[in-house]
């Protein structure tokens, strides 16, 4: 469940909005940053905290693609394959990632190190092709650069 420190953050957040339901998205972010994903127990915990039915919380978690309702690997690699990236060879980047990580989009590698996702436009079209790991964007990739990047992650 949320740590004491994070519960304090939630109290601060609630002041920003006239209704507690509005704190749901930011509180889910706090939960995900703490645990790496959002379990059903966590959803119930947050629901009780914000006075929301479990169904509402679940509905929100599943609607937004960035909330993980299952654990992810140590590194979550998100590769954009939308048009601007596709035109500049995102296929080859995806191939390099699949090859190096041993996981296809939607999968986590057997050793739990890598999760791979194919994502929609990340707003980095000027640096296409690109991938993101956490909040970090890696742009202007080539298959070689991608290999070297993944190699550097221990």
């Amino acid at each position, binding site marked *: 469940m949320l740590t004491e420190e994070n519960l304090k953050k939630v109290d601060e957040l609630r002041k920003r909005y006239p209704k507690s339901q509005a704190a749901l998205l930011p509180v889910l972010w706090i939960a995900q940053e703490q645990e790496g994903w959002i379990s059903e127990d966590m959803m119930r915990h947050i629901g009780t905290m914000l006075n929301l039915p479990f169904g509402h919380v679940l509905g929100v978690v599943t609607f937004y693609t*960035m909330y993980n309702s299952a654990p992810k690997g140590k590194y979550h690699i998100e590769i954009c394959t*939308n*048009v*601007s990236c596709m*035109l500049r060879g995102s296929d080859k980047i995806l191939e390099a990632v699949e090859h190096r990580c041993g996981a296809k989009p939607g999968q986590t590698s057997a050793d739990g190190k890598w999760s791979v996702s194919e994502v929609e436009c990340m707003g*980095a079209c*000027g640096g296409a092709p690109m991938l993101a790991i956490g909040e970090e964007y890696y742009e202007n990739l080539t298959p070689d650069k991608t290999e070297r990047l993944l190699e550097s992650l221990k």
Partner: protein
Amino acid sequence: MERYILPEIPDYHKLEVYEQHGGYAALKKALGMKPEEVTDEVKKSNLRGRGGACFPTGLKWTFMPKQTTKPKYLCVNGDESEPGTFKDRQIFEFNPHLLIEGTAIACCAMGITTAYIYIRGEYGKWIKMLQKALDDAYVKGYVGENILGSGFSTNIYLHKGAGAYICGEESALMNSIEGQRGYPRVRPPFPAQNGVWGCPTTINNVETISNVPLIINRGWEWYSKIGSPKHPGPILVGVSGHVNKPGVYEVATGELLTDLIYRYAGGIPGDTKIKALIPGGSSTMILRGDALEGVRMDAESLKAAGSSVGTAGMIVMDENTDLIRVITRIAKFYYHESCGQCTPCREGTGWLWKILKRFETGDGQTSDIDLLMDIANNIEGNTICALGDAAAWPVQSMIRRFRDEFEKRVSKTPNGSPEPSDRNRHAEKTATVSL
């Protein structure tokens, strides 16, 4: 042209540098004006929204009720998820105080005491940059209680999205702020009457709001003379795809598309011809490469050319591009992002994608071309929000302007595609997408 939104000044994102160059002078000026004078200034400047619809900003502000017992809200839209669009990110990184100043001025003009800047969740790093700037602005008294001793107070909060294209749609954005799924709302009632929590609300794009301090500083007359008279001002144009120097370029509206491609973005690699251009993000109608001469980056010129400015995110495609693959990818995007409320969009986007995949693998039927058009026509105009239209327009325009590309894929031996095996793999891989 001098750059106003993204000036070439080192460390401009820092408050002290921004102040040294006249930052927050517009806010001081606005606080000394009557609110309706501020709105009037923006109205006369002819500033039009940079989020896609080109709606006159000053006019939108006048829709907010003056007499109301309810609190009023401003939502600044930084969801920026339209494929081909990456301009607001530049503002968060290089000129965050311009956005904060514009937000405070807009609040002052409309008597708003709470503003939310909604930013897509993927921009976590940029949210932190903007938050740092916002914290600094609070410390200096540009935001918060009794701004610069004027008696006017307003709070600005950042609200982080979580991965949903639809939340860039203004009513879905409001639902998302309220802690709900990002479902667009039926209008009327419009946000100015019934917005977040049923209160009067205005929603403006990040780039739109960032133009406001310029107008207040130098006056509407100065601003309205920049670029095209009916759609004036500086505009951030993103150029991506097959160009030598992809990136965001600040120009005056009315810049020739060909200048943007050749002069700013360095032309096409290998000096090949342009086959097609998406001028303003994936929702805008695709243009033929041989029909770009004389077309300008402004609402009137692009409308006359059969498309629209959208978010000014240009995607350039050279003569070797497999356009069927491009349109199939675009269709997959809208299928993935449809919120599922309206049947024509929820079902129609999936049908478009499925049929387009047949062309991608060379298995299309001649009758499928008309079927695609029929489905697209039945989505357009029949949904709560514009995502349905956004899914229909690329398909309709692609068929109208590149029908031969579809006809080629009807034959048993498809040509024109550089890597057929790769194409098949792509189709298989994407078949697992679920809503």
